[in-house]
């Protein structure tokens, strides 16, 4: 958890970006928004503007994960967990003013983090965040790593939909989220569980009497 003045500056940076974008936001703007002097800001962020924006992005991701964790913890079963997860994550992205400003007006600042290999660390981070919420609902016989797999799968559905405004199955809507989970995700999870059970159980014919 960052200390209070640091967090105040990071929040101020996000507010500035949601108003004017990144290109037009100066260190002075952020200092003014945070109610501190330029000198104090540089003492808190000796790396300057770039480091500040990077940390602001990381802090936002952590904040969103924190909000999601609350919803995921409350889910009574796997279906509710998956539906709530994709819906709330999609909403968090849709309602994030700074991110939406950048996607609409300054995509060159966000796309490099979302395209090709650059997305991998975000997928891994999100999967590792969500997996512990998925695991208890998969049952004790679930194959190792299925929790991470399902978590990454959901992350991909959310990101794919969030970055494509033309998508009709807007996952911020409960009904659309339910449909994708019921039609395509839960049957896949069941198949993975069934295959793991079948592989675990020795086939009768292959059994050699001792």
């Amino acid at each position, binding site marked *: 958890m960052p200390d209070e003045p640091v967090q105040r500056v990071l929040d101020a940076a996000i507010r500035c970006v949601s108003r004017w974008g990144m290109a037009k936001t100066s260190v002075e703007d952020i200092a003014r928004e945070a109610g501190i002097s330029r000198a104090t800001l540089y003492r808190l962020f000796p790396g300057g503007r770039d480091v500040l924006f990077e940390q602001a992005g990381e802090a936002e991701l952590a904040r969103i994960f924190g909000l999601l964790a609350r919803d995921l913890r409350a889910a009574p079963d796997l279906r509710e967990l998956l539906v709530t997860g994709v819906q709330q994550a999609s909403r968090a992205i849709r309602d994030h003013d700074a991110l939406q400003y950048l996607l609409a007006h300054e995509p060159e600042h966000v*796309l490099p983090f979302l*395209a*090709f290999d650059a997305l*991998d660390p975000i997928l*891994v981070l999100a999967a590792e965040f969500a997996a512990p919420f998925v695991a208890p609902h998969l049952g004790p016989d679930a194959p190792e790593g299925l929790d991470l797999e399902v978590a*990454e*799968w959901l992350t991909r559905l959310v990101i794919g939909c969030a970055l494509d405004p033309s998508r009709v199955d807007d996952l911020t809507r409960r009904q659309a989220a339910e449909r994708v989970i019921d*039609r*395509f995700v839960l049957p*896949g999870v069941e198949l993975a569980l069934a295959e793991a059970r079948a592989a675990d159980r020795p086939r009768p014919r292959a059994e050699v009497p001792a």
Partner: protein
Amino acid sequence: VGGRVGHVEAGASRPSAGDDTRGRLVAATLRCVEARGLQATTVEDVAREAGMSRATVYRHVPGGRAQLVADAVATEAGRFLERLREAMDEVDDPVASLRAGLVLGHRAIHDHALLQQVLRTEPGELLAELAASEPLLHGVVAERVRAVLEGRPLAPGVVLGEATDYVTSLFLSYLGSQGRWDLADEAAVDRLVRVQLLGGVLARRGG
């Protein structure tokens, strides 16, 4: 996406007709970007590399630098799409077709030295340009997905159009970023396709 850049013109036999000028300019642009970077590449550089005057370049490519870059990206993207389509066309089975597309597509993206170079050093302009090819890529994949699913027994309640959208979207997600997966591992990709892409789409055999 041919891996090495410059092979368009590298051979001894060069097509002679004037309608190949755009092709020569694309090859020259790619070589310039490889040598000095995307932002730093100018119309003058490309003209010199192609052995043409600046005026000739502008006559064929009135949009100047922006159009040269757009042409080059569109040409490389078109090659990639052709290879992807071929790989997915080769087999009729949905699992095999999607697996082949993911394995080839991932490898082609990773082996494209120039693409990786620009992504590492100055991705901004390239990504904006690639976004223009996205609908084309989406269209090719969706068309192939629909073709391999058509006529197959689908799971109860699953509609072809909806399944096509779902599979296409997830396929493109993996094609771009492999995340925790190793898309060079055919067995892993096979399992990925069966469980995540098609697990809820195809009717189960035998129940």
